[in-house]
């Protein structure tokens, strides 16, 4: 066992944190402004691009930094910690991890050459379109149809809650190519926003994560060249979908760890300054108890995320561990956000304090990337194995 990040990883973590704190975190009023406007921050996006983070895990050959999984999620954690802008962290994550990474892992040479350099520079923004108006948790039930016609596929259907939808230039779109085959009849396509028949139906108005734009996407006889299949036909769920979900449940969660640390710091600072009954509220055990629990949550979350990163870097399947991390971090994140508002009292309910935004932001954790309920289904299925099917996964005591 070795729980130490390498010297390079520590240096990288510090530099990303310092960058994010200086450029974004120190000016929380600006983040508040964009949160209120429900708008993407193009200026910040350019800064992240210039700092070289958008292509972090992508190969150097295509303009990326060639970082391993652990380093990627350390970068995400440090950015979220420093910036305190969860929406922007998500925009980056959806772009790099949910679109760039699957192309890197499963794309053809031509696809990589076309998309990865533009993703690495941020010139093209990427997204991942799985959820539909009527298929969320039950991802295999997608209704968006793709029918082959000559050397093209014709896509018809709607995608819902798509992060980066309004600003994305390229999307990994999950479609059904053969309804009979269910899971095995699902195929992933790379769709560009200027393909005929693609449109952004509407930008959605959200409770939190408002600096990350979300949209409903409509495909009306949308024409996608056959060479834009990602992976193989029929491999869209088992191959592409699950690969992406495993990354999503670990890397994106790393931003949750960073956000948790930012919230904890904000609370400590406030608790030391705020005086009641003649002394700082940090001296009251009721406040201290909440702060201690935040620290416990932080350490536990970080270990769970890093473990998934290490397993992925070693090529060990981490479906179970990713679900554990996702479930724990998102649920404890809700509690931390709640306690953070509570520590701030009435001020915590006001827009000028970042914990108000944090409270709204936190709720997405238990919904996106597979709801808490889905994570519990995955975990209990692996453990209980009621159908006596072998599902793998390193288990303790089983």
């Amino acid at each position, binding site marked *: *066992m*070795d*729980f*130490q*990040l*390498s010297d390079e990883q520590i240096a990288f973590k510090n530099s990303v944190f310092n960058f994010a704190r200086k450029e974004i975190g120190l000016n929380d009023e600006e983040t508040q402004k964009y949160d209120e406007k429900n708008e993407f921050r193009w200026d910040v996006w350019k800064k992240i691009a210039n700092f070289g983070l958008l292509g972090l895990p992508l190969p150097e050959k295509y303009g990326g930094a060639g970082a391993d999984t*652990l380093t990627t999620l350390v970068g995400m954690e440090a950015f979220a910690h420093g910036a305190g802008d969860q929406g922007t962290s998500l925009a980056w994550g959806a772009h790099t991890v949910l679109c760039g990474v699957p192309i890197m892992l499963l794309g053809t040479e031509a696809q990589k050459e076309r998309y990865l350099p533009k993703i690495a520079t941020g010139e093209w923004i990427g997204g991942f379109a799985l959820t539909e108006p009527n298929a969320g948790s039950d991802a295999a039930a997608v209704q968006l149809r793709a029918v082959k016609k000559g050397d093209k596929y014709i896509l018809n259907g709607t995608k819902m809650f798509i992060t980066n939808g309004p600003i994305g230039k390229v999307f990994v779109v999950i479609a059904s190519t053969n309804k009979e085959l269910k899971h095995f009849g699902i195929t992933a396509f790379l769709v560009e926003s200027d393909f005929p028949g693609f449109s952004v139906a509407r930008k959605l108005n959200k409770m939190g994560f408002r600096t990350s734009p979300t949209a409903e996407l409509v495909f009306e006889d949308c024409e996608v060249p056959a060479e834009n299949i990602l992976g193989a036909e029929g491999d869209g769920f088992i191959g592409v979908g699950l690969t992406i979900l495993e990354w999503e449940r670990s890397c994106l969660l790393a931003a949750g760890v960073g956000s948790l640390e930012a919230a*904890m*710091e904000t609370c*400590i*600072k406030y608790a*030391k300054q705020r005086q009641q009954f003649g002394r700082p509220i*940090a001296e009251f055990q009721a406040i*201290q*108890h909440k*702060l*201690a*629990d935040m*620290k*416990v949550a932080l*350490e*536990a979350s970080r*270990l*769970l995320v*890093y*473990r998934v*990163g*290490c*397993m992925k870097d070693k090529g060990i399947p981490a479906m179970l*561990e990713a679900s*554990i991390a996702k*479930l*724990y971090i998102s649920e404890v994140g809700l509690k931390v956000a709640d306690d953070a508002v509570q520590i701030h009292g009435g001020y915590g309910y006001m827009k000028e304090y970042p914990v108000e935004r944090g409270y709204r932001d936190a709720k997405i954790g238990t919904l996106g990337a597979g709801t808490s*309920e889905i*994570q*519990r*289904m995955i*975990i*209990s*299925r692996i*453990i*209980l194995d*009621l159908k006596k099917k072998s599902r793998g996964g390193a288990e*303790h*005591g*089983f």
Partner: protein
Amino acid sequence: MDFELSDEQKDFQRSFRSFCEKEIAPRAKEVDEKGEFSFENWKGLAKIGFLGLFIPEEYGGSGASLITRAVGFEELSRACAATALSAESSASLCTTPIVEFGTEEQKKKYLPKLARGEFIGAMGLTEPGCGSDLSAIKTRAKKEGNRYILNGNKMLITNGPIADVIVVMAVTDKEADRKGMSFFIVEKGFKGFSAGSPLDKMGTRGSPTSELIFEDCEVPEENLIAEEGKGFLMAMRTLEHARIGMAAWCLGIAQACLDESKKYAQERFAFGKPIGYFQEVNFKIADMKVDTDTARQLIYYAAWLKDQGKPCNVEISIAKLFASEITTKVSSNAVQIHGGYGYMKEYTVERLYRDAKLGEIGEGTSEIQRMIIVRDLLEKY
């Protein structure tokens, strides 16, 4: 970074688990029912070298790392929490001050016997009037010639009724507060020492607990550990080790709850199918898995830090706090999954539920752990 146990540690885990399942677990129910310490278990543990696992090789032990210690206590506790608690008190609480601070003579005299299980060890910190607030202890040690005379009472002492040797903290200088405390090695045959009768407990009933009474108890001066005034520091250092052990102890109970619940959910039918098919049941099991798995990472992390000689006070408290609190929660859900049967003595979870509660109290309550954690936070930020 690497989250995997080494091959050696995995081998140890595998073989020790199989020992515990064969030799320890079958007696767990009886040990609990009778409320009696199992000398048979003790002999078995001694025979395979578990009791000397943490004692350096030159004194008859095998000098294992703290990660290995955590692995071991989890497995033992999973089989029988009471036996694990007694083993922890002897092999960890009692030996740590001697290993880390004792003189060569003390080490030679006591460690080999503790390693072989010939001596059962204990530690005496808590008193009738003080537990969490250790600086308030009242047991006095006064030097008279080449002896110390101890007077006072220790309370809630694990292994109290059966211990051959006890490391005891007493006040040597009342004025010096925390710097006026010292540790002594007391043998059960010392004049003026006696152990009270076993206290009746909710759980861990096979691990005897009692009061210790010191009435002009005569302790030779060579049985002072290190020097006068180092007691508080030594207690803190020892508790760091002990908290890792306690966290692993809790985890063993939680893992046993998960194992039992899994089995029950697969076998018990309701409404025509195994209850494991119902989300009210399998979601609880998923939560147990998340909790135990997370606790395990925190424990290994804290143990690793300690093994590396890095600062780890806070991380140890985090591991202990987390592991103990999830264990009471997990054990409660385990009983719930078992329904009415879970309330019956014939089901293991009934015992586990009672055993679990100790985790939030022993080796520093949850409240004390949070104090340790937050004190550091407020200093750092």
